[in-house]
Each structure stands twice: as C-alpha cells, then as structure tokens.
C-alpha cells in the first residue's frame, strides 16, 4: 500500500496533531516561495481559506466527525466556478469576472469542509497542451523550470508536484489531466464521462469534458474523486452509478500495439516496459498477465477528436460576446461589439479553433467533417468495447515525448496537437483513465496511462493502486 498523503493529513487533523490553519499556513508559505517562479496559481484566496480552515478546526474541537477532504488545502483549476470569486478561464475576455454561482462539485466540497487554496493556471479555455496559451503567462514544470508542465491543467499539476497544494481539481477533454500529470510526475485521474457533474465547469467540448483529480498517490486522487462524483439534476449527462468492485486473483492488462510505434520516445518506451516487468514480478496475492492487443482504428483518433472538439468548442464559446459579462469593447453596432470584444479578448489558439469549428459545422462541410468524425467515434468506441471483453485494463504510455522546453512547440499547432495522440481516444469513448508516474528519464517524469471500462472507475483505481505498489 502506497503512502496516502491525504489520509495521513486527515489522521493528523482528527488527532489534533496538526490544525487546518497550520496546514494552510504551510501551503501559503510554499506558495510565497515558489509561485512567482512556477506561476501555478493565478490567485490565492488567503482570507477566505483561513475562514474555511478555522471552521474545520472548530468542528474538530467540538468532537464532530469530518470528511476525508475537510481542512485540506485544495487547488482549483480556473475554469470551475466558485460563487463570488473571480474565474477567468485563463482568458482576457473574462478578466475580473466573478462567478454568480458555484459549480456542483464545489457545492459538494464546501459541504465536506474543503479549504479552497486558489485558482490555477491553464491554457486559455482549455485549448492547448502546455499551459503556454494562458493569457496570464505560462506555468513552469517544477522538475525543470525551463520546461512545460503540460496542459491544459498545468497549474494544478505543478501545484501538486511542487507541494504547494496537497491535491487539486483539473478538467480533461482530450488528456488535459493525464498529460500534465505525466509531465509533472503526479497522479492524474479522469473519470468516466457522466460520473462527475459539469454544472459550473466552463464548457469546452461538452461531450468530452470531465472534472477530475490530481494527487501525489492514486488513493489521494481517489479520495478527491469520491468527494465530487455523483448524479446531478443540473447536468443531465450525469448518471447514478452503483459500482461494486470485486477482488481478482489475476488481472489481464491489454497493451495496444498501435501505441508503441513510430513517434514514441525510445526512453519512454523503455521506462514503460520496465514498469510492466516490475508489475509482473511483484509478489502479492494477485498476479498480472500482460497481453498484446490491437485497437485497429487508433490512427483515426486524433483527427476524429479534433474535428468534434473544434465544432463543439466553437459553439460553446459563442456566449462570450461582451454583452452580459466579461470584457466589452465598444463598436458602432452590436456586430462590431461582438467582433471587437472577441477579437481582443481571445488568444490566437482560441481564434484558430473557433474558426475551424465554424468551418466544420458549416453547410457543405458538416457531413464530411463533423458527422464523419462522429461516426469514426462510434468505430473507436467499439474497438475499446471489443478489447475490454478480454482484458481488465489497458496500459499505454501517457505521452509520446518527455516534457518539452517552453516555446519549443508553440509555433506549429499540429505538432502540439500530436502530443495528445495517446489520450484523446479515451475521451471519445467516455472511459475512465489515469496517469501514474512510473519513473524518470534524465530527471524528467514519465507517466503510464491506465484505461478502464466505462463506469469502472473504482475498479480502475483499485488496479492502479496495485500497480503503484508494485512500482514503488
């Protein structure tokens, strides 16, 4: 069993060995030391979090039971709404905007006694793969500050990797939790689509987006997931799941050959296959069998993902028009207000995606691009369904490359899109997946992606904990 930082902190809070205020103070002093370099946090809610921490300490003093997440400082990606607090989607178009309601996940966490540390940096409107597209500066990788932390949830990943936050919320549309988790050497978990409410999450690609968790261990990510998951009447894509997991004697791991071809860094492959050996050789009351499988249509996944994503996100960003909230730049008429506001408020990557999305949905191209992509989506989902008939979990590298240097991939969008090649297929099929740190190459972290059956989130987390123990 790998050490769970969150469980440990919870024990210390309950036994009064540590107070929530002391825990918060240590986060604040680490943030003061590191955030000006790393730029993980765009805003730290010092006063509010102190109030929240004191409330938890009072409850402990009164002998009340507290939840696992109570009193533990939590970083929140800056696309999750907290009533009365600023939320910008890392964009100029929402600079100064204050949320008028809280996301459903935040409501749950508030009730559970969470202490909200601050909002973390990410690629503007979750469009990117390195957190270099933020309108508020890039975030740096704590393992090497000349390199990217990954994206889009780079701020949350870096906050946890640097110790500034014990755990963090992120969101994943095409790998935005898993890829930065791999680059920063932490655990990042994306639940099955429909497991966590998206009400109060600034929408990017509505049929892919999911809020998920970052932690230093699988159990930490699981504790946070448990606190936020559940059906929500405010999000009709959520489903009530009563998952019961069984302990198995043998776990069959599918290793898709399409993920180990040209384009994968050789050192990453070595590290991943090395981790397979460690897992196989681990002594326990369970065993593992690695089997090569095929996901034959994986070569279409990236194009499929991008066409759907461009289309849905261009629709979702239509609401940012300078009328009801956010920035407004005046013009002679309403159309000019829209044009000027959106022209000045959106960064280049956002504009790029909105334009291509508009094209993909336009008359004459809708069938060839958007509808075609949605049909390929069915094909890829079926590949996964077939594979899961004979395996319990699928294991792949999370990323094809090691964390790259800041500025290295920003000038060619297609090169940056190719970084997502291993993660996007998961979102197409609505599956749960996580990235587990399995080693380093030249001091840079390598992540192993584990993919589970649809709605088999706790089963996947259970397997991940076993593998984590084997690799430790």
């Amino acid at each position, binding site marked *: 069993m790998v050490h769970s930082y969150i469980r440990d902190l919870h024990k210390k809070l309950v036994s009064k060995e540590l107070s929530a205020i002391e825990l918060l103070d240590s986060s604040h002093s680490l943030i003061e030391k590191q955030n000006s370099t790393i730029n993980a946090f765009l805003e730290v809610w010092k006063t509010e979090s102190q109030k929240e921490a004191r409330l938890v300490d009072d409850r402990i003093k009164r002998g009340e039971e507290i939840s696992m997440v109570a009193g533990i400082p939590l970083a929140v990606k800056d696309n999750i709404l907290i009533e009365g607090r600023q939320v910008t989607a890392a964009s100029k178009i929402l600079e100064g905007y204050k949320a008028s309601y809280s996301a459903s996940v935040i409501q749950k966490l508030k009730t559970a006694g969470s202490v909200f540390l601050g909002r973390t940096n990410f690629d503007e409107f979750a469009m990117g793969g390195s957190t270099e597209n933020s309108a508020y500066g890039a975030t740096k990788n704590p393992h090497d500050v000349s390199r990217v932390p990954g994206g889009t949830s780079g701020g949350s990943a870096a906050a946890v990797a640097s110790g500034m936050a014990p755990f963090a919320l992120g969101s994943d549309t095409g790998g935005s939790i898993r890829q930065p988790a791999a680059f920063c050497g932490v655990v990042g978990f994306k639940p099955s689509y429909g497991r966590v409410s998206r009400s109060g999450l600034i929408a990017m690609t509505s049929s892919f987006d999911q809020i998920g968790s970052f932690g230093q261990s699988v159990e930490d990510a699981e504790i946070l997931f448990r606190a936020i998951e559940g059906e929500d009447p405010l999000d009709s894509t959520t489903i009530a799941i009563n998952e019961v997991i069984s302990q198995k004697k043998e776990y069959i791991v599918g290793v898709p050959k399409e993920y180990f071809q040209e384009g994968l860094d050789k050192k990453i492959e070595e590290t991943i296959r090395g981790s397979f050996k460690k897992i196989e050789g681990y002594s326990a009351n369970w065993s593992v069998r690695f089997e090569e499988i095929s996901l034959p249509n994986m070569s279409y996944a990236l194009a499929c993902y991008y066409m759907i994503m461009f289309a849905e996100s261009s629709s979702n960003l239509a609401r940012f028009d300078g009328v009801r909230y956010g920035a407004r730049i005046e013009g002679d008429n*309403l159309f000019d*207000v829209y044009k000027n506001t959106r022209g000045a408020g959106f960064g*280049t990557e956002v504009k790029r995606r909105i334009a291509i999305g508009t094209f993909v949905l336009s008359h004459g191209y809708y069938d060839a691009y958007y509808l*075609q992509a949605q049909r390929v989506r069915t094909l890829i989902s079926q590949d996964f369904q077939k594979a899961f008939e004979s395996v319990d979990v699928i294991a792949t590298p999370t990323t094809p490359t090691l964390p790259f240097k800041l500025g290295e991939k920003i000038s060619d969008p297609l090169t940056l899109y190719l970084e997502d090649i291993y993660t996007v297929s998961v979102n197409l099929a609505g599956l749960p997946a996580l990235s587990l740190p399995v080693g380093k190459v030249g001091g840079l972290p390598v992540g192993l992606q584990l993919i589970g059956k649809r709605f088999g989130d706790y089963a996947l987390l259970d397997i991940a904990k076993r593998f984590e123990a084997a690799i430790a």
Partner: protein
Amino acid sequence: MDKEGIKRLFELACVGVTNEELARFQNEFKAILEYAAKLKEAPLGDLPPTLSMAPRTNVSREDRSVPVQDESLELLISQFPESKEKYLKTKNVFKK
C-alpha cells in the same frame, strides 16, 4: 482554404482578426484540414454517429419562476459590462 474564405469564417463567428493572423491561419488551416482528411479512409460501413456517450433523455422542470437571492442578483448585475439601474445595457439589437 483561401484568405477570403478564412476571413468569412471569422465574420460568421463574429471574431475580429488581424491581417497577420489571417496570413498565419491560412497555412495552419491547410495542414490541419489535410490531417483531418484521413477520416475519409476509416472503415465505417453503416455505423451511426455517436453524438454523446450520455443517454439521450430530455430533461424538464416545472414552469414556475424560482426566486433568486438578493446577493446572487446583485452579483449578476455587478457583472454587466454596462447597466442602468438593474437593467443590462447593450447596443440596439434591431438597428443594422
């Protein structure tokens, strides 16, 4: 996709764009759409599209107004870029 075509897309999307951005986007869009063209080769048979992994059920609620708390209302109004009393002020929507 030519410069005029891309300009038209930005007009449809109501997003202002500079000439430098247009020139840059021309090359990039070509590369991206060429990559996307590989979707035509996928062995689809007569597979239907998957628009969402979520079940396709409609959600409705009672048709009654739910009072909003004063604080929430004040917060909403404070976020209006321009307001008059408690009304949102915007450009005339009927004028061309």
